[in-house]
């Protein structure tokens, strides 16, 4: 009996250990945002809220984050619009160029970032376009696009086409059907795609590094600072973004759980 229960425990224990492994450096990063360090943030020197209270004392960190947020928002808007259109077309319509579209959406995901980064940088260089915010945004829209399509496609596939037909039967014109029926039903998928796209853009380093010129982004700032030690202010920003994201995800899930429980009751 005893041996049996030990065997049953192996899998949960292994899984918890794997999660501890995944989360250890996150805990470390958050902890060291409270480190009373002055320059390099490598040794624990005591607890302080100083870095949280005055993040923008390090002007360079704040500028980099501002750039990352601006790039993330603009890239997400473009990638989400282009990607949603592609996803609707791929699920709803039959057309000849379909495998070409699928292939050109798959390939960017199967191409290493360093190839995408060097390729775009070479193109901009040959065309005489100086690297900066615009080239970063162009690059981000490109690699976010495929992920938006995959995410929205999953939602379009669950959509019941009879709802749209019902709308059309009730004399809604195609435009109204799209705005009043299709779009609201697709919204959850579009929102997850946009969040994913923003996260990908915000955290991208390699492609950005090749196409940024002198513009700094948050990941680029950390990469460059790594040689001499990353200041605690970078940990503050990363921790704040992390906590915000986790709260959003948990809130969505708890809301979903409550909704399901209510549905089960009624």
């Amino acid at each position, binding site marked *: 009996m005893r041996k049996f229960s030990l065997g049953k425990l192996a899998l949960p224990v292994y899984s918890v250990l794997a999660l501890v492994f995944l989360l250890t450096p996150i805990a470390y990063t958050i902890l060291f945002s409270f480190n009373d360090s002055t320059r390099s943030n490598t040794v624990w020197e005591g607890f302080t809220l100083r870095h949280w209270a005055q993040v923008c004392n390090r002007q360079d960190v704040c500028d980099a984050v501002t750039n990352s947020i601006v790039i993330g928002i603009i890239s997400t808007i473009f990638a989400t619009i282009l990607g949603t259109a592609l996803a609707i*077309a791929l699920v709803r*319509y039959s057309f000849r160029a379909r495998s070409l579209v699928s292939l050109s959406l798959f390939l960017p995901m*199967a191409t290493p970032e360093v190839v995408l980064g*060097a390729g775009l940088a070479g193109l901009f260089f040959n065309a005489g376009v100086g690297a900066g915010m615009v080239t970063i945004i162009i690059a981000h829209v490109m690699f976010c696009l*495929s992920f938006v399509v995959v995410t929205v496609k999953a939602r379009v*596939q669950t959509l019941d086409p009879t709802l749209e037909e019902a709308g059309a039967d009730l004399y809604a014109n195609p435009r109204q059907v799209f705005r009043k029926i299709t779009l609201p039903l697709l919204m959850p998928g579009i929102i997850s795609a946009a969040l994913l796209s923003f996260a990908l853009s915000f955290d991208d*380093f390699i492609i950005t590094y090749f196409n940024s010129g002198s513009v700094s982004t948050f990941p680029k700032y950390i*990469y460059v600072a790594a040689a001499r030690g990353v200041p605690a202010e970078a940990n503050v920003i990363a921790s704040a973004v992390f906590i915000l994201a*986790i709260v959003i995800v948990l809130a969505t899930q708890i809301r979903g759980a409550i909704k399901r429980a209510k549905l089960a009751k009624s």
Partner: protein
Amino acid sequence: MAFAAFGGGAPAKDNSTKRKGGPIVLALILPGLIYLGLFFMTPLVSLLVTALESPDPSGAIGAYFYDLNFGNFATVLTDYMPQILRSFGYAFAATVFALAISYPLAYFIGVKLRTSPLIQRLMLTLVIAPFFISFLLRTIAWKQLLSDDSGFVSLLHSLHILAPSQFFLGSDAAVIFGLTYNFIPFMTLPLFTNLERLDTRLLEAASDLYASPNKVFRKVTLPLSMPGIISGTLLTFIPIAGDYVNASRDFLGSSKTSMIGTMVEADFLQNWNYPSASALSVLLMGLILVMVTVYVRRSGTEDLL
């Protein structure tokens, strides 16, 4: 087709509900397709062209002309052989480790936790939690946790796994460790998506027919989860082969752990040797495409995905 491995392929089943599109389809796909043509396909072609260039006769640094110079590929292959072997060696090792860590985890969350959906959701959130915090900072955290004066390294010293003069950071093992760590969620998620739908009645049927737990796993669970294993290994192997951050000396590596990406970055951004950087990129892309195609064909599930 290989690209179906990512779920990007078109399922032909639900054609009955599909409408024939005219101008609407064009309006939906053209903007995206043109965008990818301009900023994905053109750069690849431009890489291929640049890979065939020769240094400008004037001798100016960073100036080249198109010459159909295939010699760049030969140069890159001989000069960067250690980096090429290392990149694919690291990618192979890290993918295997990530699979070994992810499979039991994904099985536990996807199959064992079905009866308690709230815990299942919570654990899944913890698996994707690393996505919400910069991977550069997480890698730096490991660098400090495994530094030369850390408890981990003194443990390795006292166990005589490392000689007193040796350290962990900067070694092949440290880079593989970092790569494995950073790509575990990319492996766990597709495995979870697959195992979540695993029909456990098939497992019961197998054990009712006197298959040992070991045999049930090998003959039923493993083959059924093959599509998840394939997407997971592709989603980890490809980006790992092109990564160079973990191997950088400012992170977990040293000058002895440089990868293909390290050389592309150095040639492109520091040495302005665009033909060399381009030839190396084209080579990396070509090798990956060949490996992916062979791998997906071999595993024989190309149509299942």
